[in-house]
């Protein structure tokens, strides 16, 4: 009996030691994986995109009931506010019709001026409309997964936009799905320009809802409400893509309210502007080939010239 108790206690002690050894081993392994991951090797990148591809169908199926529930809720809301909404839309329609006539006038004027200047138009953009199937944002990372990948013509570095404005850029591309890094992520940097003053700056994410403007000249005349658009520097995004407006100036920080509502995105448009950006050159991608990519997406539209 005594011998049996002794053997049991030895087994328990051995198990405890094994557990502790495994714990220390796994802690060391996690540090090792961090070092390998920091080097951003091809293997790690492949593994990431492979997993995104694997979970894409599951997440797509799982996110549909949520999308339906949200749609039902918004339908109810719309029905409640139908009369007010109708009046607002009638007013908006009036304004838009005025803008339409101005737009047509400018378009013909623009065409005539381009003809005179022998102007070469920007390359045409193609769009892939993709549903958001996962929100992988956490305290220190802001990203999404969308259901469109290499098969749909998505390329790393493309701009992700909503109807309202820029949202982020494509970070990883799988065959069926891609990860989009949001503008609010702490590592996101986008060259922008203040539309009114034409001062260039960099929009830097800070993991809050309001990214901030950096590298502005000291004597810049900036006001709350100033529109911020992309400057096109670096060639990743075209010039003049709406980003947001100055929300507040606090302790030397200029915070921006994005036009796109990052917490209400169901679909994103991934845009191939066919620009030979620095991202593609850094990756060693032949930009002349990338420029020829045409995407068979749902909403393939030419950019308005």
């Amino acid at each position: 009996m005594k011998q049996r108790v002794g053997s049991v206690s030895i087994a328990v002690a051995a198990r405890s030691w094994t557990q502790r050894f495994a714990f220390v081993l796994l802690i060391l392994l996690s540090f090792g994986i961090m070092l390998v991951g920091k080097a951003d090797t091809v293997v790690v990148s492949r593994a990431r995109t492979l997993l995104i591809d694997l979970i894409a169908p599951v997440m797509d199926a799982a996110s549909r009931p949520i999308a339906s529930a949200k749609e039902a809720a918004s339908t109810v809301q719309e029905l409640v506010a139908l009369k007010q909404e109708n009046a607002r839309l009638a007013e908006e329609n009036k304004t838009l019709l005025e803008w339409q006539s101005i737009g047509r006038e400018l378009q013909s004027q623009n065409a005539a001026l381009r003809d005179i200047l022998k102007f070469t138009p920007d390359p045409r953009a193609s769009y892939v409309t993709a549903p958001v199937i996962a929100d992988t944002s956490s305290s220190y990372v802001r990203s999404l997964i969308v259901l469109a990948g290499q098969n749909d013509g998505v390329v790393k570095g493309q701009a992700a936009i909503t109807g309202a404005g820029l949202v982020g850029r494509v970070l990883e591309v799988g065959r069926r799905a891609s990860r989009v890094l949001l503008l609010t992520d702490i590592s996101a940097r986008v060259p922008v320009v203040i539309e009114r003053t034409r001062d260039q700056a960099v929009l830097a994410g800070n993991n809050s809802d309001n990214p901030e403007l950096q590298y502005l000249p000291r004597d810049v005349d900036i006001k709350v409400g100033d529109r911020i658009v992309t400057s096109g520097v670096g060639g990743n995004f075209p010039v003049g893509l709406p980003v947001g407006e100055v929300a507040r100036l606090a302790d030397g920080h200029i915070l921006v309210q994005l036009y796109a509502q990052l917490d209400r995105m169901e679909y994103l448009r991934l845009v191939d502007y066919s620009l030979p950006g620095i991202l593609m050159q850094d990756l060693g991608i032949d930009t002349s080939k990338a420029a020829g990519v045409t995407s068979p997406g749902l909403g393939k539209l030419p950019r308005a010239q």
Partner: protein
Amino acid sequence: MALRPTVGQQIDLALRRSIPVALAVLLLFLGILPWNTHGLGPMNANLVLIPIYYWTLYRPRLMTVWAVAALGLISDFLMGTLLGVNMLTFLVGYRVAVSQRKIFAGAPFIIVWAGFLLMSGVAGLVQWLLATIVKEQIDFNLRPALFLYMIGAVAYPPCAYAFAWIQRRSLFRVA
């Protein structure tokens, strides 16, 4: 002489034993669904810390250190964080739960809940430290982290209730 379990019984046992880890994976996926919580920020709390804590307390053999490491690694791949960050965070959280198991396992619910708050707080701190080191800049904006901490705190009681029910129903005789 003890009877050898049939193949069916062995499969049944293996499936039952995998319930705690499967629940953790389920919560991991639920956390990244596009909930689009207006004005509340990211919903993806470290919800997976809840099953890790609960099962470490009540069924430690079914939530092993290896399973916790694997959950962390899957989370890293899914979230796009630097590989190893969530793995290390979950392992530290697991270690806190293991070290306090004797105190919390038989304690009243409120104490167990406080234990979870302690564990997820330590895990959150580790996550913040790692994010600071990895990004090479100190992130003073702790609002999202605090929000996620609160989400975890609020989500613990219903999750624990559901796990206790599953434990009674399916893991009663499983060691």
